[in-house]
């Protein structure tokens, strides 16, 4: 493999992994608080369409990202209302959010289907971007790529070094105990759900404003679900989320490069495109095989409704 091909594949892998990192880390916080939100796909779709529409109208991609984040949070608030205040089933409500979000995004986005945005130029970090091989790939990237790294470090610190992170984990492990020592369990869970929604919205915005600057129905293409799988795959640990997201990014990119390489291989492109989905299944199987891995690592109260005794 020559050097420039390596650099461009690494570049593309980082870009493809970025929305997965942002969304999966948001979901991780969500699930650490004991709430399972299966609606990531819907929140991403809404984030993507809101970000696209606002960027298109205002010409400012950062207003777009803010709008995407807001849209994701609005969807998450709806979910929170159902499962936290009204104690609805989390699985059913999450599915509802996924279906509803994708549908609403298709509806809202109809007028934007035929328009394109200007590509946002990457941000070059002086000096280290000149490193051979990896410099161009890692340090001449979109701002949200750097954001995903900051999010990762911030989350590591928050979960394992801060008091607030400890409280969050306590709420997920044993809401009754957290309530008993005086923490507002429901309010903390709302915050975690909103954070998950915000990150899903930003992840969606990355897709429609930076990754492929356009809006098309179904453009999220299962990434919300893959992010959910990533959190399980990572056994709820941020570092493994990062590694997993780049692995998936690598799989997506490899099949695209094979398709675009003009290599004379007799393999249909549609079947190559299904590789990331097969990869998700294979990885899920690998990590779930030993039931204890999941049982020991998943937040104990995940998916169970909790109602504090007054």
């Amino acid at each position, binding site marked *: 493999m020559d050097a420039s091909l390596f650099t461009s594949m690494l570049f593309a892998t980082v870009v493809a992994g970025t929305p997965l990192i942002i969304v999966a880390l948001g979901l991780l916080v969500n699930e650490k608080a004991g709430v399972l939100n*299966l609606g990531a796909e819907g929140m991403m779709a809404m984030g993507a369409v809101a970000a696209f529409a606002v960027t298109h109208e205002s010409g400012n991609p950062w207003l777009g990202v803010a709008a995407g984040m807001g849209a994701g949070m609005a969807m998450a608030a*709806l979910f929170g*209302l*159902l499962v936290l205040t*009204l*104690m*609805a*089933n989390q*699985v*059913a*409500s999450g*599915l*509802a959010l996924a*279906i*509803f*979000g*994708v*549908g*609403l995004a*298709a*509806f809202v986005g*109809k007028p934007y289907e035929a328009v394109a945005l200007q590509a946002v130029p990457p941000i070059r970090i002086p000096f280290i971007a000149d490193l051979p091989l990896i410099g161009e790939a890692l340090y001449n990237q979109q701002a949200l790529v750097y954001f995903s790294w900051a999010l990762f470090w911030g989350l590591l610190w928050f979960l394992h070094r801060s008091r607030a992170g400890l409280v969050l984990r306590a709420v997920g492990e044993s809401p009754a105990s957290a309530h008993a020592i005086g923490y507002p369990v429901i309010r903390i869970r709302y915050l975690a759900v909103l954070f998950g929604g915000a990150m899903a919205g930003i992840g969606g915005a990355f897709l429609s404003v930076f990754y492929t600057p356009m809006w098309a*129905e179904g453009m999220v*293409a*299962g990434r919300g*679900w*893959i992010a*959910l*799988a990533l959190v*399980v795959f990572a056994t709820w640990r941020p570092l493994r989320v990062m590694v997993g997201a780049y692995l998936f990014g690598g799989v997506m990119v490899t099949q695209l490069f094979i398709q675009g390489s003009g290599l004379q291989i007799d393999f*249909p492109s*549609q*079947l190559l*495109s*299904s590789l990331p*989905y*097969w990869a*998700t*299944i294979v990885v*899920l*199987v690998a990590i*779930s*095989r030993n*039931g204890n891995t*999941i049982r020991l690592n998943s937040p104990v109260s995940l998916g169970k409704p909790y109602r504090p005794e007054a």
Partner: protein
Amino acid sequence: MLELEARAEPSRLMAWASPLLAVALMLVGGLAVFAALGKDPVEGFRVFFLNPVKDLYALSELLLKATPLMLCAIGLAIGFRANVWNIGAEGQFMLGAVAATGVALYFGDAESALVLPAMVLAGAAGGAAWAAIPALLRTRFNANEILVSLMLVYVAQLFVSWLVFGPWKDPDGFNFPQTRMFAEAATLPMVIEGTRLHFGFAIALAALVAGYAFINRSHAGFRMRVAGEAADAARYAGFSATRMIWVGLLLGGAAAGLAGMGEVAGPMGQLTDKVGSGYGFAAIIVAFVGRLNAFGILLASLLMALLYIGGEQAQQYLNLPNSISMVFQGMLLFFLLGADVFIHYRLRLRRRGT
């Protein structure tokens, strides 16, 4: 201030009233949506909710739309009852369509009366085979069936697209991604002459009856209900969780595959890359709104079909995108999930400080 108070026993009245409440709230929400979009709400209501039931032909189209929904939903309901979350019915639907198409393309010209029954079997088998993947991975490797069945939807879509762009493409089809039209012997006959309502509808009704018998009258169905409502009791009684996962997924897959067969052998008459049109996902809503029982699913599938056709009408007469259907369908499920809180809780007025 208002407070939720746990009921001593779940309210039977609310269990029935909550879907009706959800429908009422959806109608109110719908009027608000029309108003917000600057359309006359009364006109919107007429086009969206009354046009689809205005005459016999409209009604036959409604039943045609409801057919795949009730088939997929009754199959899903069996699994959902045991907390087996198959949400990949959309993919199983497509694989059923593919298997039935295979029979139609290779044997359809035989003009034999056996072609259609073979397609029915192939459709059910195709859907069940696709659902067997999450069942196997869940029972052997403990892999979450929600995520696996869902990933397989995307794989199925790409597989269909490969078939209709590649080996099964109609050579005289001007390069459109579709197979050739099925022969007469591979097309379902009509129930009512002059409409598009085909015999798949009769199959769907039969499936509802069979689903009712399984859920409410069979021992296997009883075991699955127990497993869903009281998992510990089911384990104590020695009911096999593995078998329930297999039964739930295979029946769900077979029903969805049948629905897919009905679409290609019925209104479409060929396989195209648009075969999966969201019925498998909408059926999840149908199953919940129908309270996971056969009669409820019948009503809910008619309602959801109405929302689909209402969306088409709104596109035609009100110049709105037809994805408005999905907005209404999503609203319906949200309102239902919200209203369901009153099955287990009641509102109480309580003064502050007490």
